[in-house]
């Protein structure tokens, strides 16, 4: 492999420069590690157990999925205050479909119930999102107003669909989206971990090859290797933790009994990766590809950086707004699937205040409300940090009002740090 010559003179590069890592990302990971360690010490090691990490993961998924879409919304200088309400109406539509309508047509537990339910939910989310986008993009109503209206409208439309009642029990197949009920087991988890690791290494290697092909400077081989090793270690480590969370014995016994078998003595099995977490992983990968590697993503960031320039460059920014809000609506529907299955019911207050959590996650993750800046992984990390704070404080026994005070304070602090960071690196705030 040829070693390309360094471009700008022979100045010695620091470790961080060689790795070409996003220092903002490192800062967030650092903050997350500190939060975990502090809670782990206070709770005498209960915070960083496989069980708690498993729970944290499945609790984060719903907000994290919506936060990836909120990045696009905020990057284009809009806001969506209606995500919690859209989640609620998608959930109520799916609840009515799978509990009342479809079982009447096909019978309870029919294999078509789950796919048709999901389809109805996704269509509901997409339609509401498209309506929001049309009102914002073509009718020029500020997104704040359109979605503030949506916040009041959609949850209550859902209320009428279900007469305000809790809807359940849900379809058994549908319950797989929830987490505890739907994990892929340890063997498949290891398999997936290896697939993801190979893909990560392959992706990094391909990017390097493309740079070499065009004779651009690349980072030193050791730095590339370190990056690959870290990614693989993170993937395998996460799966190893989830794979060491044993399924409770009572539950295993019930499962064996339901199949008419007797559980062998000393039998153990592990949860492994939850399906909801896998959905999040797929969504993060797809959304990151959209952001970085598609025209749509390029236009989203261009329109956020300079809407006039985007329009003058021939980008149809109105249609772009419709696409972004439609995508947000679809992601709300997917979040509704996960949230509803995790709670095992549709309830009226599902997703309450999620709009604030989702916006906070995106903003803590470095998405600038001024537009043009934001990353998908940042928003997910923001969601993870918020969820860790909240469940950590709950474990420690912090009063509920004080939990909210802390989360609010962290939100403002995170944005302040971000502004200071940008000032230092000479970016415009």
């Amino acid at each position, binding site marked *: 492999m040829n070693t390309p010559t360094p471009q*700008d003179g022979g100045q010695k590069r620091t470790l961080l420069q060689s790795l070409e890592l996003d220092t903002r990302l490192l800062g967030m990971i650092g903050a997350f590690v500190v939060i975990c360690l502090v809670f782990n010490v206070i709770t005498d090691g209960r915070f960083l157990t496989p069980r708690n990490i498993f729970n944290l993961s499945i609790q984060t998924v719903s907000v994290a999925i919506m936060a990836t879409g909120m990045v696009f919304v905020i990057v284009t200088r809009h806001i969506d205050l209606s995500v919690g309400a859209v989640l609620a109406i998608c959930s109520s539509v799916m609840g009515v479909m799978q509990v009342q309508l479809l079982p009447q047509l096909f019978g309870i537990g029919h294999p078509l119930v789950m796919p048709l339910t999901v389809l109805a939910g996704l269509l509901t989310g997409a339609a509401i999102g498209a309506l929001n986008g049309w009102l914002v993009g073509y009718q020029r109503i500020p997104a704040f107003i359109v979605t503030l209206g949506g916040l009041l409208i959609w949850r209550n439309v859902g209320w009428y669909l279900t007469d305000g009642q809790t809807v359940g029990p849900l379809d058994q197949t549908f319950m797989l989206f929830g987490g505890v009920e739907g994990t892929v087991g340890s063997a498949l988890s290891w398999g997936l971990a290896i697939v993801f690791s190979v893909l990560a290494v392959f992706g990094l290697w391909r990017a390097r090859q493309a740079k070499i092909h065009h004779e651009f400077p690349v980072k030193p081989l050791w730095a590339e290797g370190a990056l690959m090793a870290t990614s693989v270690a993170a993937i395998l480590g996460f799966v190893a933790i989830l794979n060491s969370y044993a399924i409770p014995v009572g539950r295993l016994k019930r499962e064996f009994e339901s199949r008419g078998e007797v559980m062998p003595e000393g039998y153990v099995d592990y949860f492994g990766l939850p399906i909801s977490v896998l959905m999040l992983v797929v969504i993060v990968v797809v959304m990151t590809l959209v952001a970085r590697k598609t*025209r749509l993503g390029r236009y989203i*960031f261009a*329109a956020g950086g300079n809407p006039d*320039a985007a329009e003058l*460059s021939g980008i149809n920014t109105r249609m772009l707004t419709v696409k972004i809000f439609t995508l947000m609506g679809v992601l709300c529907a997917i979040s509704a699937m996960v949230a509803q299955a995790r709670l095992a019911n549709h309830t009226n207050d599902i997703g309450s205040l999620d709009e604030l959590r989702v916006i906070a996650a995106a903003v803590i993750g470095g998405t600038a409300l001024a537009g043009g800046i934001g990353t998908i992984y940042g928003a997910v990390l923001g969601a993870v940090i918020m969820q860790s704070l909240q469940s950590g404080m709950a474990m420690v026994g912090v009063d509920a009002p004080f939990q909210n005070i802390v989360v609010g304070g962290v939100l403002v602090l995170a944005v302040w740090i971000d502004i200071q960071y940008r000032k230092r690196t000479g970016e415009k705030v």
Partner: protein
Amino acid sequence: MSHRGTPLVEMRDISIAFGGIKAVDHVTIDLYPGEVVGLLGHNGAGKSTLIKCLSGAYQMDSGAIYINGEKAEIRNPRDARAYNIETIYQTLALADNLDAASNLFLGRELVTPFGFVDDAQMEAETRKIMGRLNPNFRKFKEPVKALSGGQRQSVAIARAVYFNAKILIMDEPTAALGPHETQMVAELIEELKAQGLGIFLIEHDIHNVMRLCDRASVMKNGQLVGTVNVKDVTDEDILGMIILGKKPEGVAC
């Protein structure tokens, strides 16, 4: 200057009004290949509005645009691009948060066979064209907000050149630039002219007009005062047209 053949652009009898105020009032101008036509006038004279009808940013109320003698329908910036009309705006219409290559190809990205944007290929093309236009340009990785006014302007010009513009609209291209960078842009205009492009140049600086333009069309209060060959007039004549709306005597237009 004698023009033979059909003009590259002819804007015939263009009018556009905003809420009762006639921003452009029955104006006719034209442009031939290899020619720079200056558009002059006070702020609010209507020159930017007129030219935005050509670039697709505004729609005229009445009148017609002919490109190479054929009637052209320009409803938005995409239509304008289809006629190889490129615009370099006074406000430097670049997305500040994207790098030079992303801006150069904005709206016309190169894609891989899988439909993904081909950043490496675009950067390579950007390096090629910038090597020709502005060999000192180095900041390919930074967002363009990290660039100087001249560097940004060279990205905007590179965009027009790369996509084989036939008709170039430059709205005060040197307004935000220092003397050295102004010189660089002036040389670029000469080169583009030699390649046979037609250039509309909106310009306030009378010296730049005398130096760069072949003809000058002067507007006042939305109306065309007149079009003169720059060689046949003095800068006082042109100032008289701009300020008093008075056509110099004995000059053929």
